[in-house]
């Protein structure tokens, strides 16, 4: 199921503006990789290049290679739609479809892709909601609108929606930044469970969170505002937080821990 991602020489632009420059890294399967770094250094941009969502933004352009188990996502003839159903994404703000019930939200990926068997749908929805630790809270109101849930529940609903299409990689862009500590904890626990099945990449502004949930951590930085973001280093999370090899990483981490 879970796949390895190999990025080499990746540069991304917004029209003429170069947002990230020449990034190379490997994301290991069945593990959690955390991206940390100051705002505007291109963490979200880089994350979105990993499932070809970057080009959805007008002017968005990418150079370089992203190999998913040896297959280049940006190779000629690759269908971005297929890439996105292989590499799922969870956004910063919970964004359930407002016209759909909880059930329909989770089933949306399958239904809208048109690739499902009716009989299996209920099973998939139940399995995904259980996988997102939400089943017990919503099983009696599957037909209620998804927007009626709390923020934390909505975010878990979005995770359930993302894993319902059985992706191999799950990208999360600050999934807890709009949530309270308890919901955050619920999602962190969930990430620990999900990494058994998926390759997970998570962007976070919260150092403790990166230290708690991730196996490897990548630190991004930019030399000045307006300059493109760069990957400074990527290593085992423990090493990054105890003994990073680059001074800038240590400064950033210790500055935050203060």
């Amino acid at each position: 199921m879970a796949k390895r991602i190999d990025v080499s020489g990746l540069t991304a632009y917004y029209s003429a503006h170069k947002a990230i420059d020449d990034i190379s890294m490997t994301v290991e399967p069945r593990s959690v990789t955390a991206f940390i770094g100051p705002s505007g250094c291109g963490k979200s941009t880089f994350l979105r290049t990993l499932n070809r969502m970057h080009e959805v933004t007008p002017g968005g352009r990418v150079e370089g290679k992203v190999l998913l188990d040896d297959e280049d996502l940006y190779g000629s003839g690759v269908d971005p739609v297929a890439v996105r159903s292989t590499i799922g994404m969870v956004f910063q703000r919970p964004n359930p479809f407002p016209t759909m019930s909880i059930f329909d939200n989770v089933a949306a990926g399958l239904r809208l892709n048109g690739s499902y068997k009716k009989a299996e749908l209920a099973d998939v929805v139940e399995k995904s909601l259980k996988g997102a630790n939400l089943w017990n809270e919503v099983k009696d109101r599957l037909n209620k609108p998804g927007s009626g849930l709390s923020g934390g529940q909505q975010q878990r609903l979005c995770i359930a929606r993302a894993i319902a299409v059985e992706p191999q990689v799950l990208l999360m862009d600050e999934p807890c930044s709009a949530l309270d500590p308890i919901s955050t904890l619920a999602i962190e626990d969930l990430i620990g469970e999900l990494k058994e099945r998926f390759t997970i990449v998570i962007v976070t502004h919260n150092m403790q969170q990166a230290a708690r949930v991730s196996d490897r951590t990548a630190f991004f930085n930019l030399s000045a505002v307006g300059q493109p973001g760069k990957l400074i280093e990527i290593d085992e999370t423990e090493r990054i937080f105890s003994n990073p090899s680059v001074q800038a990483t240590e400064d950033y981490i210790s500055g935050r821990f203060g």
Partner: protein
Amino acid sequence: MSHAVVTDKRPSTLRGASLPKWFAWATAAGSLALAVGIGLAAGLHSKVQWGLIASILFVLGTYVISAKVEGPRQAKDRVATSVVWVAFLLAVVPLVSLVWTTVSRGVKVLDGYFLTHSMGVVADDEVGGGIYHAILGTAQQVGLATLIGAPIGVLTAIYLVEYGRGKLAKSVTFFVDVMTGIPSIVAGLFILSLMLMLDMSYFGFAGSLALAILMMPVVVRSTEEMLKLVPNELREASLALGVPKWRTILKVVVPTSLGGITTGIMLAVARIAGETAPILLLVFGGNFINSNPFEGPQQALPLYIYQQYGAGSSAGYDRAWAASLVLIAIVMILNLAARGIARWKAPKAAGR
């Protein structure tokens, strides 16, 4: 200096002197009475003039009294409030009087017979007759126009919001803007010139085509606004699930804004239902029931009103007012239906 005075006047710094709640009403009544007095004294006959004088007195009086008692900041606040009220009344008074006039004159001949009979056997200066043929014609012409105009308008808006980049989108937007300004008579003449080229004569569908031209830009504009209100996050959420763009638009974007889109279409329908000029040019009107919009002249409500009023007989006037009442009622029902649909289709919030 004034500082000291203020502190003297106000024992509490948080609670200043304030006028009682009935102050606004009292000022309104006072200025109205004064305006009537001035109007009578000066020999002004027009009630409109009295009203204008009352409005000015109301705003001025509010300011002067409030500035004396409460201070200049509250006075400005009160003036802003009263200007809003006056503007509201100025807008509402003509509307109410229009509805009142139409209802009081319209009910005279409005009954079941009037709604279910045509003018087939009635001369314009005789009493009797009805508007069945006009209602039928309006329904068919407007219905066909909507069938053409609404889908094209909605699809154009989807193109502009979801796909449109660069020159083509810019020029489409420009043409939509130009079309918004087309006078209805010009739309009528445009279709008429086509009809003359093809050697055809009056029929209902020709009117529908002109109405569709008038309807399209309105639908494009309102649909565009509604689609722009759909948060980008929903599109991205759907795309990130591996849903193709066209299905995302069809299943996520349009359903989310369906209430607003429908409301826009209904309002456009209401707008073209009252168009007279293209109908006069292209459908011609007439006194008989013609249920085939593709052949022969047809009547329509606005044209019926125009022709009955033009006939100059008192029976004609009565019928014109009754038909106006029916037309207003139809437009009102469409508007209410639009609101109902908008409420019903709006994305549902918490727990309901």
